[in-house]
C-alpha cells in the first residue's frame, strides 16, 4: 500500500469513527484540489467554493455512515461527488431557461456577479501590468490562441510562422512568470482566481 493510500485509509477509518479532527484533516487535505477542479469546470471562483462546500457536506455524511467501501479510492470518491454536483448545478440552474428568467437576460447570474464584483478601472490597471510582464505582445497572441481560442500548437506555429521550440519557450516562460506573479501579487491572484487558493 502506498503512503497516500495508507493516509486515505486512516482518514476514512477515523471519520467513520466520528473523529471530528479527522474531518478537518480531510478538508485541509483536499480543499485546494477540489476548488481547482470545480473552478476549471465552472470558470467561477465563488461557484467553485460553494460546490466545494457542498461536496464536503455530502462526502462527510457518507463517510460517517461508512459508505465508502474502498478507502483507498477516497480521491476518486470526492471527485465524483464534485463532478456530479457540477452537472446537477448546470442542469438545475444555468441550463434551464424559463419565460420568467429568460427574457432579455444576457448573462447568467454568476457571470453577472463576477462582472459586478470587478472594479473595471482597477482591474484594467492590474491586468495590463500583469499581461505586460507575462509576455511581449506577439507572444501574448500565442498564449491567447492557445489558452483562449483553444487552437492546436501546430496551427498556431503555422499561422505565426514559429518553430515548435519557440512556441514551447514562450509557454514555459509565461508559466514561470505567471507562477511568480501569483505568489507575489495577491491582488492579481484574487482577481484571477478569487478565493480559490487562499492558502
Amino acid at each position: 500500500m502506498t503512503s497516500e493510500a495508507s493516509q486515505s485509509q486512516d482518514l476514512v477509518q477515523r471519520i467513520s469513527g466520528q473523529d471530528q479532527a479527522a474531518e478537518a484533516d480531510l478538508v485541509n487535505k483536499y480543499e485546494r484540489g477540489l476548488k481547482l477542479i470545480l473552478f476549471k469546470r465552472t470558470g467561477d471562483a465563488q461557484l467553485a467554493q460553494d460546490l466545494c462546500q457542498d461536496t464536503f457536506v455530502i462526502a462527510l455524511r457518507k463517510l460517517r455512515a461508512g459508505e465508502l467501501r474502498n478507502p483507498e479510492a477516497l480521491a476518486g470518491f470526492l471527485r465524483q461527488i464534485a463532478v456530479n454536483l457540477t452537472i446537477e448545478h448546470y442542469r438545475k440552474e444555468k441550463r434551464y431557461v424559463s419565460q420568467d428568467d429568460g427574457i432579455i437576460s444576457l448573462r447568467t447570474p454568476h457571470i453577472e456577479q463576477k462582472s459586478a464584483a470587478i472594479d473595471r478601472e482597477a482591474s484594467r490597471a492590474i491586468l495590463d501590468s500583469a499581461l505586460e510582464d507575462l509576455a511581449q505582445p506577439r507572444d501574448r497572441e500565442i498564449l491567447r490562441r492557445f489558452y483562449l481560442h483553444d487552437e492546436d500548437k501546430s496551427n498556431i506555429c503555422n499561422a505565426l510562422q514559429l518553430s515548435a521550440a519557440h512556441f514551447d519557450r514562450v509557454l514555459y516562460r509565461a508559466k514561470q512568470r505567471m507562477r511568480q506573479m501569483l505568489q507575489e501579487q495577491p491582488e492579481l491572484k484574487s482577481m484571477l482566481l478569487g478565493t480559490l487558493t487562499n492558502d
Partner: protein
Amino acid sequence: MTEQNFSEWVDDYVRDRLPADEEAAFEEALLEDAELQAQVEVALGMREALNNDSELELQGAMPARPSAGNSWSGYALAASVALAIVSTTLYWQAGVENDRLINQIESLGQPVGSVLHVPVNIMRSGGQSTPDVIVQKPEGRAAILLDIELGTKARGEAQLSFELLDPSGEPVLTWQSSPTSEGRTSVVLSSEQIPASRLWLQISDSSGNELERRLLEFRPAN
C-alpha cells in the same frame, strides 16, 4: 502513470482536451499532489488573465446595457410582427445590435407576447444524452432568441449553416449566419415553429461539414 506524465497533461486538462478517462485520472492525482495543483493554478491563472482581458475590452466597447424588462420586451409586446427565422449578430458593439434585432422583429408581421432569450453556451459538463440547454416554451406566441456561443472550429468560418434536427435526424428548421468577432451568433425563432421535444442544433461549414452539435430540450409551456 508517473507524476511527470501528469505534469505534461496540465495544459490539455485546462483546455478540456483530455478524454474522460484521462481527465478522471488527472483529477484524482490533482487532489493529492500539491505541485500539480500549483501547475494547474498557473495555467488557470493564464486562462483567466487572457479571458478577463477580453471581457474588460468588451465591457469598454459596450454602450449602457438596457435593464431587464427593457425596451426589447416592451417593443415586442407592442410590435406586430411575423415570426419566422431571422438570423442576426447580437452583440453590443457600436450600439447597433439592439436596433438590428428590433428591426428584424418589426419586419416580420404577427404579434408576439414576449421575447425569450436563451444563451446556448459551450458547456463543460454536458454529455451526449444531457441537454446543453433546457427551455420552457413561453405561453402563447413568442419569439425565442437563441444566443449561441460557438466552438473553436465554427468561430473560424465566415459562413455557417444551422439545422435543428428532431431525434430521428429530420430537419425541423434550417438557417445560415455568420459568427461575430466574439465567436457568437444569434437567431430569432418562432415558438410555434419549435416542437416541445429534444432537438439537436447542428452547426456546419459552408460545404456542409458538421462542426459541432448541441442538444436542446424544449418543454411545453406550463
